[in-house]
């Protein structure tokens, strides 16, 4: 026993190092003893459970076989004795003692199997009839069953006898030899003994096989967990292809590890993107300030340089605000404030607002909004997501381009806009389509990642966080964001569930 229970014991020097087949954590022998460590293993417990069940089944089978063979012979013998005894008592009732004696003599004379035992004695225990020399000592004459050793013509055998009191102070004893049955019972017992030995061997072998199977199945999972905890996120649990519960467990663990790896990769990419995207404006602001400090000739030059640096720093602050906003949305803290919201009036207001801005840019905004489009969510967040999509559409559409804003209610009854069909039941699709350069198919899956910027967006201002925020809003609402080809241009579809949002949250993805 370790003196410091919170500190792990060092491994034994002579202990076998863990390999793939022995990757399961084992109990420390020093803390629990070797026997405790042995029985502490789940594989051993499963094996013992198997052995116990196997043993109980074998025992039940053996008991039934005994009951139906040796037990049956015993019951048949006792039934024959009782019938014989009952017949003799009837003879006594019909014709008195003389009739009973004559019947006993007849039955002895007719006992061709030579296995019968009869004895009739009076109140003084004097023999009146029968083939037994005397009433056995120590055997009470009242109603009972007894086994007797008898000498049948020099051959010692065992007899099962029934004895009871009769009227007139008589005592009658009737029995049958059971030596052959005892021998048969011994044979059955021997057979069952060997069957039991075989059952123990089979049960033990089966238990060891169960334990081995259990360990072999869990060893890979344990080895994978050890490798992952050591930093190898590429390790996965082997799937045997048997489609059993262990395969299901392995697939679930692998899915979990894939998810963890994606999240880790996302964190790494975001860290790299922040470092990369913020370095340029910070360096630019520093250079402007440094240049102004060294070469500004007038106060106006100095103020101009400071204003430019402030603009650069405002851009950095905006990026951080967007990141914090996405993180806030992804955290789901505002899901508790969700309610049923009609997004149709909100979309109409936004269409009116952006229509004016589009006109200023020489573009056209076409809106097809249904009278009502109820969703369960946060109105402000949905508005911000749609605004991001409209900003993107206006930014990437050419002059005189057409931007379409539409919405479709589940079942198509309230669909409008003519920019989509096949709406999934129980959802509202908000569609923003433009005729700009669009996003190449190979980039669409990554387009909603933070700081992702496609080739067409390199020359346009932006932080690469707009679609990431839309994606976060979709996930929070249990919806999806689909980016499709509008031929030409991009068709962004924000799918939001109509239901209460309790189910399916956090399942949003970019299709």
């Amino acid at each position: 026993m370790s003196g410091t229970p919170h500190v792990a014991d060092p491994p034994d020097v002579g202990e076998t190092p863990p390999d793939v087949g022995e990757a399961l954590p084992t109990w420390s022998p020093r803390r629990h003893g070797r026997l405790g460590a042995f029985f502490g293993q789940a594989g051993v417990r499963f094996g013992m459970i198997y052995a116990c069940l196997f043993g109980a089944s074998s025992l039940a089978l053996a008991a039934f076989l005994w009951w139906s063979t040796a037990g049956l012979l015993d019951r048949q013998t006792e039934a024959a004795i009782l019938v014989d005894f009952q017949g003799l008592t009837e003879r006594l009732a019909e014709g008195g003692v003389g009739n009973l004696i004559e019947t006993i003599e007849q039955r002895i004379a007719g006992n061709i199997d030579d296995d019968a035992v009869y004895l009739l004695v009076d109140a003084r225990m004097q023999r009146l009839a029968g083939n037994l020399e005397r009433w056995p000592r120590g055997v009470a004459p009242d109603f009972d069953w007894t086994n007797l050793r008898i000498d049948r013509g020099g051959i010692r055998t065992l007899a099962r006898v029934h004895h009871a009191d009769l009227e007139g102070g008589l005592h009658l004893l009737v029995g049958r030899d059971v030596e052959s049955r005892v021998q048969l019972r011994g044979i059955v017992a021997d057979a069952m003994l060997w069957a039991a030995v075989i059952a123990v061997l089979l049960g033990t072998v089966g238990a060891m096989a169960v334990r081995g199977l259990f360990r072999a199945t869990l060893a890979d999972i344990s080895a994978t967990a050890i490798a992952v905890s050591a930093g190898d996120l590429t390790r996965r649990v082997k799937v045997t292809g048997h489609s059993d519960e262990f395969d299901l467990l392995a697939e679930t663990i692998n899915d979990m590890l894939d998810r963890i790896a994606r999240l880790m990769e996302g964190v790494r990419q975001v860290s790299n993107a922040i470092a990369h995207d913020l370095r340029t404006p910070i360096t630019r602001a520093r250079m402007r300030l440094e240049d102004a400090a060294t070469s500004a000739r007038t106060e106006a030059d100095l103020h101009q340089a400071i204003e430019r640096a402030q603009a650069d720093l405002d851009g950095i602050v905006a990026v951080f605000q967007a990141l914090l906003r996405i993180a806030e949305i992804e955290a789901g803290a505002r899901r508790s404030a969700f309610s049923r919201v009609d997004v149709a009036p909100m979309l109409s207001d936004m269409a009116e607002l952006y229509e004016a801005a589009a006109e200023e840019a020489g573009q056209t905004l076409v809106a097809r909004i249904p009278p009502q489009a109820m969703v369960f969510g946060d109105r402000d967040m949905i508005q911000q997501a749609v605004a991001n999509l409209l900003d993107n559409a206006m930014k990437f559409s050419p002059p005189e381009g057409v931007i379409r804003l539409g919405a479709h209610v589940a079942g198509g009854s309230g669909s409008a806009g003519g920019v989509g069909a096949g709406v999934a039941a129980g959802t509202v699709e908000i569609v923003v389509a433009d005729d700009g350069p669009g996003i190449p198919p190979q980039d669409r899956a990554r387009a909603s990642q933070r700081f992702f910027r496609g080739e067409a967006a390199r020359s346009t201002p932006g932080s690469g966080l707009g679609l990431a925020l839309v994606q976060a809003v979709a996930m929070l609402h249990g919806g999806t964001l689909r980016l499709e080809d509008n031929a030409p241009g991009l068709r962004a579809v924000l799918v939001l569930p109509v239901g209460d949002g309790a189910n399916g949250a956090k399942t949003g993805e970019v299709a």
Partner: protein
Amino acid sequence: MRPHSAAEAAMLLAATAALVLGVRAGAAQSAAPSAADRGGPQSEPLRIITYTREHCGELSRRADELMQRRPRVTPESVELRDEGKRLCAEGQIRPGIIRLRRAIMLLRAPAP
């Protein structure tokens, strides 16, 4: 041998031994006679007293009476009676008694 393998082997041997002893003891117990036969009051077996010449004579007399009463007897019953008498006369009491009893059973059987 590793500790776990040794423990498993020991468990296997112990379980087998316990099972063998248990089944043996159970079988012996079930086949044992009552207290009266385990060296108690009945230390010596009780004799069956019918293996005597007198009983042979009694059975012969019963067989003869049954033959006289029946109008027809089978050759087999006659043969068993005669063989039983002969064996009893030769001192082979028990085989003689068994044959006489068979003859009596045949003679008691209803006529075909």
